[in-house]
């Protein structure tokens, strides 16, 4: 407050130059300290009894903070002071409670504190402005404002203190320290401070005001612009002049960025100058600014940097407008450049050889040397859109042209400078692209490419038509002065001239080339067509022109020049000369075209035919000036014509003499020519022959139609044709003719003439008809015979095949005679090689040929063919061909085959059965022997039938009589006879034969034949022998059998056979035994029984029994015997097979003893278990007994009452009876178990059986706290077994289980018994416990005898149980449970009804 603004500024600057954090620390420290001091003073004053307005002190501290430390600290101070105010002065009791009446003070205080802290920020802003602008007056203005506010505040705050004190006082509130403020002291203090402040402020104001005004006036009146810019490039200050330079107002500029006034590309440069280089204190710097309206303005800047603290640097610049000067300099420079450009362009024009290079070069020069941004040349296109095609460009084109789409049509895009220039033919200049409306379509693109103005200059051809434009774009607006435009127009004109020149030069070159080429073509054409051309000057009568060919035609040397007319004339043959001269003169005279053909003779004697045409050429006056024309060498043509004429004459002669009739018709079939023979035959006159009707007159009506049709067709397709037709001769008879017509065509293929011949074929026709008829007959015959005829030449293949041949072989007659190979394909593959071979042989040997083979028809059918062929020789003995027949003999073959087969079967049957068949006459000489019979007699069928005597030779001598006898019987007694005899074959083999003969009688009953069969029975004989041998073997076998065998003849009542065992067993010899009655070795005691057994056996029963035999020595032994009836040979025998069973019986006895022992053991075990159970059983019995006793006592007591209660007594008695029975049952059960019962099989209900056992162990279980659970299957099968034994097993298992669980404390003691069916016929019982379990290793051991884990056990229980179950056909085994304990399982087979029978 007591310092001037400048001082304050400096001090602030000084503070700020120090490190920033320290500065902040200081400033915030100041705020805290000032509040602290205010608080301290206030408290100190209070303590010493001075009551001062503490609020005021605090606000004062806030003000100090705001003033010297800035906004942040001021706010902090305001907050601190508000808290302090509340904490220490409003509520000194230190409770968080504001007396309601004090709220207004508090609020107002807080508001003022806030206001004060804001005040600090006003000041700060003003200070910053001051630093940046150096505008002293502005600074003073702001300073003045803030001081005033400070003053106002103090005044107001003083008033407030006074007012609130008074208010508080007036309201008479207690508990407020303000009450104790000395009013007078407070007023005095405030007044003093206010006064002091006012005085200080006024003084400072007065001091500063004069300096500021001076500065201000200086700035306002300066000619130049004054411009102040801060570090961020924002305008801090600008005077009116400055604003005018930039085309705006100071208000628009101040506080805003300077960048809008700076061209984009110059931005960095300017910022560097303005802001970065502090060492240049005064700088003269020229810079182009952009005015607000977009125009460029050149300014001279004199810049001085602002001296501020380290960070806040800006600058102050004096600015003067030097645009005009700049523009003048620029124009001058540009003119210079353009002049230089034009000169360069002219040089280019002179040097240019092609147009594109020229355009490119000029564009380059315009751009680079004249300094334009872009130049391009466009040619007007005469297309629909009238587009302008850019052909060359340089500079900053950057794709602009491609997108511009410029035209020269009168449309939007055609009204640009380029379009305008082309249309009007005048240069068109646009000085400002940015504003000119014509540039609207391209503006954005133009500006983007940096084009600001442009000029288009038309390029004109020699006719003054604009064919294109040179367009130049400049980077500056208004770049084209009139001087510049003039220069550019000149440049464009030069350029157009250059282009036109280049173009015409090129055109001339092309024309020359074309001319030269066409001349060459002409010469070549003349040479090829032998045509020359010439010109003759009439006046001088000399050739003015001869083409090359002329020289060649007329045989002159072109080197020697054109010959004189005379020389040429001399070459013409004398007989033609006159004619030539006449027509030549005619052309001259009458001025018309004439032509001539004449011959010339060349020096070498060659004659040439020349065709010449003369054409007069007239001048304007109609006088003849020249003769011109072609001369053609037509020698070749002439020669050809001559030759043609000659040949035609010859032809006519030939036609006249040939035996055929010859015609010529023109294209519409009008006869043109008919030869002599035609006329002779038809009797027509030549005239008649040439009329169109001639044909109709001579042709047979039927053939005429055919002819017309054929002619029509020929007319349309122009093809030669052939037909047969009948033509009438002059005598009126028709004969057959073959007509052939051929067309003559012109070059286009059109038919000009038809040349035809007619050949008389009448004789041939007749022969054909006869042949056809005879062939038909033959074919029919062949068809009936299934045979075809053929002719075959070994050299050339099949010559002829009748129709039937095709049918037989399966070929199509329409396809003609097949080749030999195709024919051979038909032959059955099996026969083919043979057939080939045969054909070859036949062809070689030329013999008759006969063969049979099979063919396979295409449908797979196999046919048998029989072929016969005969060779036919010519007179010299050469083979002409084979002719022959092919017959289909399939059917016959088949029949033969069938017969053969049935014979074969018969033969096979005979062979297999070794049976031969035969027939003899009554002598008996053999008539027929089957093959097998030959074999049986060992004769060869190849040798033919043997005689009876020969056959007899083979018969075994011993049997010959029998043999003869047999025949005798058949022949003389006329009965069937049979005989067995032997034949001896040459190799010594003897065959046993069995012959049967049957006499065959004729009608008179005489024997005419004997037929019969003879069978080989050697095998049978052999089998019989083998049988006999077998019997011997069997005998031996029987003798060696272990069992004794006896055969007893029932009829003779004697032993007929015994075997060795029988003898040895009984101690008799075979002889001693045979013949005796069977019973002698039986015991006497058995005799009756034996007899009855024998009877039963005799009745057919097989008797099985046991009895005793006595040996010779008197000892006896038991036997087991089967006795049965056998009968053979009509006799009945008893066969007894007996076996000594003494050993077996002994073994059985032994086993019984063992079983008894086992049973005893089982009993012992049972009893021992029961011993263990005694206590339980006693209890079990005791229970019903206790019941009985109690009930009995009760009964007595009920009866003994004064009034006997009969009902109760009766009830008690009833219980006694019931319990008595129950006790009885228990005892019975125990007895049953202790009884040493013999095992018996009966049908048992397993569930019931087990339940009974459980009743016994129930008490034991209870004593051991074991819970018994049953899971009985409802449908468990009944089983077959001994109840007591099975119960023993269950008892055993149950007791073991209970014992196994007696030590168990940690789990339920449970005994679970399950029954269920497992197989269709098995029942499974399991007994599970939760006991200590068995070591899995030992689980099978438990079933061993004397294995025990119990201290008191015998180790027999499970062993016995297992043997009991095995005896029942069941099994017993144990498994360890998943959890603790063991499971015992046993199975029993299902009870079947028949078992009971078996068991019975």
């Amino acid at each position, binding site marked *: 407050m007591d310092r001037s603004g400048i001082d304050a500024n400096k001090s602030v600057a000084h503070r700020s130059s120090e490190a920033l954090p320290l500065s902040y620390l200081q400033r915030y420290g100041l705020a805290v300290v000032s509040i602290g001091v205010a608080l301290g003073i206030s408290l100190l004053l209070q303590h010493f009894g001075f009551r001062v307005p503490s609020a005021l002190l605090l606000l004062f501290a806030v003000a100090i903070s705001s003033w010297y430390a800035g906004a942040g600290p001021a706010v902090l101070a305001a907050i601190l002071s508000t808290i302090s105010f509340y904490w220490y002065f409003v509520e000194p009791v230190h409770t968080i409670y504001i007396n309601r009446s004090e709220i207004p003070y508090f609020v107002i205080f807080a508001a003022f504190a806030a206001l004060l802290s804001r005040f600090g920020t006003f000041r700060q802003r003003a200070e910053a402005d001051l630093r940046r602008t150096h505008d002293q007056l502005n600074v003073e203005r702001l300073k003045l404002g803030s001081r005033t506010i400070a003053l106002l505040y103090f005044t107001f705050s003083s008033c407030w203190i006074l007012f609130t004190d008074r208010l508080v006082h007036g309201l008479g509130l207690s508990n407020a320290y303000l009450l104790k403020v000395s009013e007078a002291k407070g007023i005095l203090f405030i007044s003093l401070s206010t006064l002091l402040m006012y005085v200080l402020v006024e003084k400072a104001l007065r001091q500063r005001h004069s300096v500021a005004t001076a500065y201000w006036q200086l700035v306002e009146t300066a000619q130049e612009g004054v411009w102040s810019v801060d570090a961020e490039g924002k305008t801090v200050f600008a005077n009116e002049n400055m604003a005018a330079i930039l085309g705006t107002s100071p208000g628009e500029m101040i506080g805003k960025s300077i960048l809008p006034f700076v061209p984009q590309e110059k931005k960095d440069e300017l910022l560097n100058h303005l802001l970065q280089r502090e060492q240049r204190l005064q700088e003269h710097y020229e810079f182009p600014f952009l005015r607000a309206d977009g125009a460029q303005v050149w300014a001279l800047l004199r810049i001085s940097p602002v001296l501020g603290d380290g960070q806040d640097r800006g600058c102050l610049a004096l600015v003067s407008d030097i645009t005009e000067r700049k523009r003048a300099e620029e124009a001058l420079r540009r003119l210079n450049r353009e002049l230089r450009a034009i000169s360069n362009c002219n040089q280019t024009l002179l040097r240019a050889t092609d147009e594109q290079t020229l355009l490119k070069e000029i564009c380059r020069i315009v751009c680079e040397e004249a300094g334009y941004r872009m130049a391009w040349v466009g040619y007007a296109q005469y297309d629909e859109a009238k587009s302008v095609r850019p052909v060359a460009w340089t500079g900053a084109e950057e794709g602009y042209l491609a997108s511009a789409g410029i035209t020269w049509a009168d449309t939007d895009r055609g009204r640009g400078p380029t379009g305008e220039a082309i249309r009007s033919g005048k240069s068109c200049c646009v000085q400002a692209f940015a504003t000119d409306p014509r540039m609207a379509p391209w503006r954005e693109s133009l500006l983007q490419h940096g084009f600001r103005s442009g000029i288009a200059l038309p390029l004109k051809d020699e006719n003054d038509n604009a064919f294109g434009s040179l367009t130049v774009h400049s980077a500056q607006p208004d770049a084209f002065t009139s001087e510049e435009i003039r220069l550019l127009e000149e440049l464009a004109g030069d350029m157009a001239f250059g282009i036109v020149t280049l173009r015409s030069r090129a055109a001339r070159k092309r024309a020359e080339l074309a001319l030269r080429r066409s001349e060459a073509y002409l010469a070549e054409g003349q040479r090829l067509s032998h045509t020359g051309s010439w010109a003759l000057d009439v006046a001088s009568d000399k050739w003015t022109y001869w083409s090359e060919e002329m020289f060649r035609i007329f045989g002159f040397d072109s080197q020697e020049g054109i010959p004189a007319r005379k020389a040429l004339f001399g070459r013409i043959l004398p007989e033609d000369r006159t004619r030539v001269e006449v027509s030549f003169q005619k052309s001259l005279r009458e001025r018309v075209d004439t032509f001539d053909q004449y011959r010339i003779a060349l020096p070498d004697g060659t004659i040439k035919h020349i065709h010449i045409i003369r054409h007069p050429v007239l001048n304007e006056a109609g006088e003849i000036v020249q003769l011109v024309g072609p001369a053609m060498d037509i020698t070749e043509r002439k020669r050809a014509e001559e030759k043609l004429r000659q040949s035609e004459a010859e032809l006519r002669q030939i036609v006249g003499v040939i035996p055929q009739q010859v015609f010529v018709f023109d294209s519409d079939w009008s006869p043109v020519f008919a030869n002599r023979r035609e006329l002779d035959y038809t009797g027509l006159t030549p005239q008649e022959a040439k009329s169109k009707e001639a044909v109709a007159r001579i042709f047979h009506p039927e053939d005429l139609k055919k002819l017309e049709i054929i002619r029509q067709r020929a007319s349309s397709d122009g093809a030669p044709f052939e037909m047969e037709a009948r033509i009438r001769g002059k005598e009126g008879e028709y004969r057959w003719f073959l007509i052939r017509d051929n067309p003559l065509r012109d070059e286009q293929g059109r038919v000009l003439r038809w040349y035809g011949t007619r050949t008389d074929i009448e004789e041939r026709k007749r022969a054909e008809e006869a042949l056809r008829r005879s062939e038909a007959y033959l074919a029919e015959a062949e068809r009936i015979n299934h045979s075809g005829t053929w002719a075959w030449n070994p050299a050339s293949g099949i010559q002829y095949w009748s129709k039937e041949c095709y049918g037989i072989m399966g070929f199509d007659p329409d396809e003609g005679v097949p080749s030999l190979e195709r024919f051979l394909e038909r032959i059955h593959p099996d026969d083919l090689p043979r057939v080939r071979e045969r054909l070859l042989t036949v062809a070689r040997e030329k013999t008759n040929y006969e063969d049979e083979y099979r063919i396979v028809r295409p449908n797979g059918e196999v046919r048998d063919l029989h072929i016969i062929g005969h060779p036919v020789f010519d007179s010299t003995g050469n083979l002409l061909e084979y002719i022959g027949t092919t017959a289909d003999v399939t059917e016959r073959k088949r029949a033969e085959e069938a017969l053969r087969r049935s014979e074969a079967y018969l033969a096979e049957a005979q062979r297999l059965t070794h049976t031969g068949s035969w027939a003899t006459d009554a002598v008996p000489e053999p008539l027929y022997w089957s093959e097998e019979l030959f074999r049986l007699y060992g004769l060869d069928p190849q040798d033919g039938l043997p005689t009876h005597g020969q056959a007899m030779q083979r018969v075994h001598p011993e049997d010959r009589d029998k043999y003869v006898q047999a025949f005798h019987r058949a022949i003389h007694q006329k009965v069937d006879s049979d005989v067995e005899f032997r034949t001896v074959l040459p190799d010594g083999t003897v065959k046993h034969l069995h012959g049967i003969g049957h006499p065959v009688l004729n009608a008179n009953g005489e024997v005419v034949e004997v037929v019969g069969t003879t069978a080989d029975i050697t095998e049978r004989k052999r089998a019989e022998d083998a049988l006999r041998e077998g019997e011997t073997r069997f005998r031996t076998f029987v003798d060696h059998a272990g069992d004794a065998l006896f055969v007893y003849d029932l009829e003779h009542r004697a032993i007929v056979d015994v075997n060795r065992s029988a003898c040895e067993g009984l101690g008799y010899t075979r002889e001693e035994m045979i013949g005796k009655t069977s019973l002698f070795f039986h015991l006497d005691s058995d005799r009756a029984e034996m007899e009855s057994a024998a009877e039963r056996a005799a009745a057919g029963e097989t008797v099985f029994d046991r009895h005793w035999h006595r040996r010779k020595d008197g000892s006896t032994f038991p036997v087991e015997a089967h006795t049965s009836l056998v009968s053979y040979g009509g006799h009945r025998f008893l066969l007894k097979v007996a076996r000594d069973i003494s050993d077996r019986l002994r073994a059985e006895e032994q086993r019984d003893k063992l079983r008894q022992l086992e049973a005893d053991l089982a009993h012992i075990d049972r009893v021992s278990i029961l011993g263990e159970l005694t*206590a339980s059983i*006693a*209890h079990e019995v*005791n*229970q*019903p*007994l*206790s*019941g*009985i*006793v*109690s*009930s009995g*006592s*009760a*009964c007595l*007591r*009920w009866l003994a*009452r004064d009034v006997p*209660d009969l009902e*109760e007594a009766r*009830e*008690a008695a009833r*219980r006694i009876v*019931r*319990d008595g029975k*129950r006790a009885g049952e228990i005892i019975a059960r125990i007895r049953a178990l202790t009884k040493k019962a013999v095992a018996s099989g009966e049908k048992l209900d397993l569930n019931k059986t087990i339940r009974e056992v459980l009743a016994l162990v129930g008490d034991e279980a*209870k*004593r051991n*706290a074991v819970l018994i659970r049953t899971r009985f299957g409802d449908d468990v099968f009944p089983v077959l077994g001994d109840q007591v034994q099975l119960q023993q097993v269950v008892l055993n298992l149950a007791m073991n289980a209970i014992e196994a669980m007696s030590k168990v404390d940690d789990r339920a003691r449970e005994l679970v018994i399950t029954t269920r069916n497992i197989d269709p016929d098995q029942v499974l019982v399991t007994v599970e416990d939760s006991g200590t379990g068995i070591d899995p290793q030992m689980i099978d051991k438990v079933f061993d005898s004397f294995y025990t884990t119990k201290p008191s056990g015998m180790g027999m229980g499970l062993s016995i149980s297992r043997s009991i179950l095995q005896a029942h056909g069941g099994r017993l085994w144990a498994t360890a449970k998943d959890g603790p304990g063991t499971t015992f399982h046993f199975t029993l087979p299902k009870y079947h009804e028949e078992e009971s029978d078996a068991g019975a």
Partner: protein
Amino acid sequence: MREPNATIAIVDDDPSVREGLSSLIRSAGLQVETFASAQEFLARPGAEPPSCLVLDLQLPGLSGLDLQKRMAEVGLEIPIVFLTGHGNIPASVQAMKAGAVEFLTKPFDDKELLRAIQEAIERDRRTRQQHAEMRDLQDRYESLTAREQEVMQQVISGLLNKQIAAELNIAEYTVKIHRGRVMRKMHAESLADLVRMAEALGVRSHKAPART
């Protein structure tokens, strides 16, 4: 007083025994309730416990001895007559030690059983009477004020009024008044009577431990 209609509970798993016993006991003019197992008995409804329990030693699940033990644990004092199928000396000794009235072996003599039951009923009656007296005594003791109880403790310790007054820091006269009230409230006819009551109640002189 309850003898004629005293209730006897029978626990036996064997129906024959149960029914026979029931008939027999009813013929003696007593009411009977039967149970097939210990659990069934423990689940018995009704507040008034039976006067006697005829209990089979071998019961499925909870055995007779187990039940006896269980009852002792819950403080159910019912005299028990044990029955057993076969004499088992260790078991009988254990049962008698635990306070069984009788241990009978089946089949038992009816007179012996009924005598045992009578004894049990008698014992039950006595127990009930003792319980009633004790409750009465306690009621009386609890009717004393805290100070009176304090004084009573001093008195039964054998201290003179003067000593008591000094001990309790009150006037001798006041002690006398308290003492008189105690005697009257406790229905004690003499100091010895009071001492006996205190013993029954378990009230001890607070000085007693110091002296020993």
